[in-house]
């Protein structure tokens, strides 16, 4: 600095300028998000979305990542996993700080305290898993022996629930209860098989049943009697890692509940065949983990030799 050679007025002016510059830099530092260094690194299990083509899922998530990146000025990456084990390891290594999969797999593979708040997929008609039969049918939950059942393929929740029922009421695996177990890719197809007498009971999610009845009101007259039901909030969840700061999580998750209200968000939800998203807590996975736990216990009991009981 050459202050010694500057005049008194000049020194005062220079001091004022320097003070203003420092104040401006302080304001900018305060305005910048505190967790600006954090990034969203989501991992999604591809098998978790059975209703949508893989390419559509990729596109939807990438668009979503771009949308959120632009909206929150954070870097967001999406990693896809073919199996839950790979995703779990990546999560443990910190490569991803968010996970998305169906509830049963998340409950089985992640501890509740590893996960922080996130969101769930909400559907009109709800996610309750219901066991349907014809209106005129006399079949009850205890009359399933030798019947034909139709359920969703690759849906762990449906399988566990059905196995739980079989073990509860028949103390045996479903293979030995039902005469035929038909696996179909969609709720609607399961309902239709029930409608066209290709099955005696159908295990579907309630929103699928509602949709099927909307598509054909004639279904309401012939089917719809519920003989078993698992009340669940959602089937699909995504959670941040508990290591992600709460402020950052909340800043990102504020967009979630209103996503279906703006066109771009609606477009993304349509691609993923979701009605809307809701905020969720890891505790919502407990019904799934409890059901899984009960099923395993009953299975063990049923497989234990009779003499040991």
């Amino acid at each position: 600095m050459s202050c010694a050679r500057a005049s008194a007025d000049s020194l005062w002016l220079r001091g004022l300028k320097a003070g203003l510059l420092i104040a401006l830099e302080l304001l900018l530092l305060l305005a910048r998000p505190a967790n600006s260094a954090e990034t969203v690194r989501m991992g999604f299990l591809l098998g978790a979305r059975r209703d949508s083509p893989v390419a559509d899922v990729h596109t939807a998530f990438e668009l979503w990542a771009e949308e959120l990146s632009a909206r929150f000025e954070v870097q967001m990456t999406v990693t896809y996993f073919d199996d839950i084990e790979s995703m779990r390891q990546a999560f443990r290594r910190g490569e991803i700080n968010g996970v998305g999969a169906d509830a049963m797999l998340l409950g089985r593979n992640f501890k509740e305290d590893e996960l922080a708040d996130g969101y769930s997929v909400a559907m009109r008609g709800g996610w309750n898993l219901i066991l349907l039969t014809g209106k005129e049918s006399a079949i009850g939950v205890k009359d399933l022996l030798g019947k034909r059942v139709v359920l969703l393929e690759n849906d762990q929740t449906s399988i566990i629930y059905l196995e739980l029922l079989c073990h509860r009421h028949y103390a045996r695996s479903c293979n030995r209860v039902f005469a035929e177990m038909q696996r179909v890719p969609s709720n609607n197809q399961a309902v239709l098989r029930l409608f066209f007498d290709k099955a005696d009971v159908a295990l579907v999610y309630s929103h699928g049943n509602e949709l099927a009845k909307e598509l054909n009101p004639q279904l309401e007259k012939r089917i719809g009697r519920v003989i078993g039901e698992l009340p669940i909030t959602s089937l699909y969840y995504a959670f941040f890692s508990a290591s992600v700061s709460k402020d950052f999580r909340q800043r990102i998750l504020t967009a979630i509940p209103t996503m279906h209200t703006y066109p771009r968000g609606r477009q993304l939800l349509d691609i993923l065949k979701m009605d809307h998203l809701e905020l969720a807590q890891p505790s919502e996975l407990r019904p799934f983990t409890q059901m899984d736990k009960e099923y395993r216990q009953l299975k063990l009991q049923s497989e234990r030799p009779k003499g040991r009981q």
Partner: protein
Amino acid sequence: MEMMSGNADAGHSGWSILRWLPTNRMFLRVFGVFGSLLLAMTALYALLIIPLQRDSLLKVMYSQAATVSRSIIQACSDAMLTDDFGFVVEHNLQVLQNNKSVRSVVIVPRRGTAMRIAPEGWVMQENERAALPATAFEKESYGIINDAAGVSHYRYTTPIRFSGVIWGVIRIDFDTSEYEYNIDEMYRQLSYISLLVVLAILFAGYFFTLWLTRPISTISQAASRVARGDLDAHVHVKRNDEIGLLSRSFNQMVDALQQSRDQLENYNQELELKVAERTRELDELNRTLDQRVRDEIAMRKEQENLLIHQSRLAAMGEMIGAIAHQWRQPLNALSLVMQNMRMQHRMGSLTEKSMDRMQEKGEQLVQRMSSTIDEFRNFFKPGKHPEAFRLAQAMRSSAEIMEGVFKNHGIALTMECDETIELFGIPGEFSQVVLNLLSNAKDSVLDSGQAEPRILVRVIRIWDRVQISVEDNGGGIAPELLNKVFEPYFTTKDEGKGSGIGLYMSKMIVENNMNGRLEASNVRGGGARFTINLPAVRKSDSPRLQ
């Protein structure tokens, strides 16, 4: 591009009201024809293209319908076999979801209730089977239909056929909005094209027509100016086509006209000068005309007198020759008388009686010779006044003069003449004409070396005209000389034999003094014929003639 020199106001009179809206007929006609042709072509194009485009769009829809139906049938074949209609419905719902142009799919199975699947849902419908066309289970059908609500669909119906068995019928209704949009788009584009064509007609047609007609109009106006006499009118059309050529030709024509007019004016001026000069000369001539006429008449008279004189000299020569011929015999006879007298005297037998007889004989001969001279003198005695005279007598006197010459040369003269015919004129002149013709015929037959020379004089009366012809067998006149024989001083005779004025004088006498015609021609067989045509004298016209 083009302009017209000279008077600018006159040059642009056709365009002066509104320069951009020329009102001349040619512009309007060309513009009208050009525009009408383009409009007609556009309309024709539209009329041709609309059905083709519509047909093409229908074919596209048919192709799409056939593809969708085949896809559905193929996908649902197993389900149809197992009556898995749930799959059929689910699949078609997906088809409808993925293909927004499909409005509904109706599956009518061979047995069971028909299913109608639409994007908004599906339903089992008993009456769909009845609504199918009668041939739905046999062959496909398609076309645009309107439903009860007035909504149009492209409906495609085809049997579900696989494994050689018809399992039902599928009927697909397609949204026609794209088709209608395309049709509307086609009409819109055609409208745009038509609008563009109209604009093009207005724009391009205007300038094209202007380009085409303006120079012609300019040339036309310039031509009108030229027609009014303004030869300063030139057009400058700088084009390399026929119009440019026309313009240049027009300018050349105007220049040529200008040049011609200048030349004409020069000629006029020169002519006026010459006329003035001629007028002066004429005035001068008029002043001296009387004197000149008198001089000319005198000169002509002198020439005529000279000719007459020459003619008379020639006639005199002829006469002397004739006298010589006439005298030759009496002179011989007189010589014989004289020889006889001398011989009788020598022999001593001259007696008084014989002396008297020979004297008497000599006197007779001398008297005859004297009378011959009188005849000739009388013949050539000039008559002063015209009078009626007998033609035969006048001809006989001429023949008698020539008689000695004819006898001497062995020329046979034949005359056929009515004694009663009379002519009016100066007998001496007429006799001289006949003498000339006879003398001419004599020379002709003698020159030709004819072995039997002959001359035929024939007189014919035809009503009030008399035709006298003198024919010979002297070989005739060369055709190229027929119109020259009456010219003065023209002769074919050897030098010293003919003066060339006999026939000329004869024609002058006949035609000027006797109101007749004298013509020459050739006769068949080799000879010349001179024909005199004269008016005859009626009895009442000649009281003095006895």
